[in-house]
């Protein structure tokens, strides 16, 4: 059984001008110890998916339908107090894109960490301090004692992200949601964080949901990848299948639009603009931009269907895999 099973999740933002249907039936599941990547462009709903899962949506956003099954319980209908006490931060932890903003600026990072340990894990001050040092050390932070005595603004971006990760790990969660964990960090630091997350997964066996717009990061880190377009999953599958032989035209186009060294001529781009979520196109939301579109595409939303084992695609006219390419790949 999956650790987390999101089915037909619908989240809307109710604005003065109307309902913005940001998530329009999202289906994903994560197994124990699995790293799942959720990739998509701005406005595709990837962060909203994460915030919906642990119910941290800000006004005027609201879950309007669907289920989030966490080890048998539906988080959408769970009491807020139960969710807060038993699940959020404890079983499911989250790290954010801007770690320095997510930390409390007026108390030391050490105190932030020991507070969690005291409250959540019932430790004494002394125990908490020792445990905090142990956690921070395990993240390869040099000179942990003095780091713990610093305030967030005294830390570099990479260091602040490590502190965020140590906070998230303090309750030994079974799922870590990482929202753009390396965006805004420098390339050399990015790689250190990626290495660290990989190592943590291997060591603790926790599952990780990585939300990112960075295809290269997803390819490097994830066991499986889900591609989100305008609030719906376009394609989800094992990382190597998805990158070697994408079946959804959007995935294929997204992969082709990367600039590369030595590339001659224009980069292949996706025509048109991202779907307007206030008035999304009928049928498949990608059809006005899709090179493979058929007449049926503007009428019916394609269901997410199995193509190869473990690769699901929501498309009426998926990309044909070339036999040779598939064989050599």
């Amino acid at each position: 059984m999956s650790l987390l099973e999101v089915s037909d999740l619908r989240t809307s933002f109710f604005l003065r001008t109307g309902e913005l249907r940001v998530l329009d039936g999202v289906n994903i599941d994560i197994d124990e110890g699995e790293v799942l990547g959720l990739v998509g462009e701005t406005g595709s709903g990837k962060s909203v998916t994460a915030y919906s899962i642990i119910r941290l949506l800000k006004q005027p956003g609201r879950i309007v339908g669907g289920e989030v099954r966490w080890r048998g319980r539906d988080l959408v209908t769970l009491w807020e107090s139960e969710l807060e006490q038993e699940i959020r931060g404890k079983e499911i932890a989250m790290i954010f894109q801007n770690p320095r903003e997510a930390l409390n600026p007026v108390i030391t990072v050490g105190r932030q960490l020991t507070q969690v340990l005291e409250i959540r894990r019932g430790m004494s001050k002394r125990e908490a301090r020792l445990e905090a040092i142990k956690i921070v050390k395990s993240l390869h932070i040099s000179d942990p004692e003095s780091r713990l005595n610093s305030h967030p603004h005294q830390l570099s971006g990479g260091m602040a992200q490590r502190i965020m990760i140590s906070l998230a790990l303090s309750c030994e969660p079974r799922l870590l949601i990482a929202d753009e964990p390396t965006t805004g960090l420098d390339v050399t630091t990015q790689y250190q964080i990626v290495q660290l997350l990989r190592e943590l997964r291997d060591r603790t066996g926790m599952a990780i949901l990585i939300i990112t717009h960075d295809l290269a990061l997803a390819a490097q880190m994830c066991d499986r990848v889900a591609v989100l377009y305008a609030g719906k999953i376009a394609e989800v599958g094992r990382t190597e299948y998805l990158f070697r032989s994408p079946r959804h035209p959007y995935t294929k186009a997204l992969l082709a639009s990367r600039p590369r060294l030595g590339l001659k001529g224009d980069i292949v781009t996706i025509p048109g603009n991202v779907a307007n979520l206030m008035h999304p196109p009928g049928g498949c939301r990608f059809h006005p931009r899709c090179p493979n579109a058929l007449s049926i595409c503007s009428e019916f939303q394609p269901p997410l269907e199995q193509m190869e084992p473990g690769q699901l695609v929501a498309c009426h006219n998926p990309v044909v895999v070339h036999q040779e390419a598939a064989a050599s790949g």
Partner: protein
Amino acid sequence: MAERAQAANIPVLTPDPVVLAIDNVVKHYPIKTGAFKTEQVRAVDGVSLEVRRGETLGLVGESGCGKSTLGRVALRLEPPTSGSVRFGDVELTSLSGGEVRRLRPKLQMVFQDPLGSLNPRMKVWQTVAEPLLLHRLAAPGQVRAKVRDLFSRVGLSDELLTRYPHELSGGQQQRVGIARALAPNPELVVLDEPTSALDVSVQAKLINLLRGLKEDLRLTQVFISHDLSVIGYLTDRVAVMYLGEVVELGPTATIYTEPRHPYTGALMSAVPGDDLLDRKTRLMLPGEVPSPIKPPPACRLAPRCPFARDRCRQEKQVLRSVGADHMVACWRAAEGEISTQDFERTRLALEV
């Protein structure tokens, strides 16, 4: 310092005239570090570069390496603390404010934040028309036609002319920023992270536009970015910066395939290859970029460099030639002690 000046004078095979010559430029910013204490942030610390007509020079490096500061100094948006910036025959550093303003049409910039760099109270056509009117580059009767022409050049439809910046998407805003920079027919354009705020698919279209403009107009550009894939696609030569200094300089293809400086080696091993699935171990630099207030005294990479020797901690490194048009500020690379293959070997050793 004499060595550095000498290095900048090495003759280059390309016959095109030098448009921009930066010589030993230093830019320090004072910051208060205590009630009575001021220290200097050494944002740019002795950089010499040349940009030739029709060429696109890429400036890469991580945040805080001074690449944006250098771009601003190159256009005389800020005066350098010391050093010389020559635009053609004109020494920009000694110009008065009025003289800089008269030269401004030839020196243009595209900024990273497209919305923040457009006047929110002006319709976008007015933003593009402003430099034309200000510098009397078009007769009032011709301005509209010129603006329309610029709009079509950057791929914006006429119906957007009368919109305000906030009504446009990020990609469209950046196109307006580019149209404004192109309006006065500049001779040098500095683009500071023009695609960084955009999504992959929007970014791809903008990159195609920039490449087309470069070919059609033979623009001379300095392209600043931390995105190595974009730099690799769009530039002719690359200068790699670390902590206010240029550590390596050379033709783009050479820098990407045969990096000689260990820092460049680490950056390049982070560039996603054609096969994104190739989970190669990267050449990892331990630790973090030190503070530009107190940079390491000799080679600035030495504390993080897996190839560092005692000499690296004692001797300041200057750019030395290691091949055609290829210079590196690392004595071990210049004297043939380390090469691109060593970066590969170290990377593989890490993998085990």
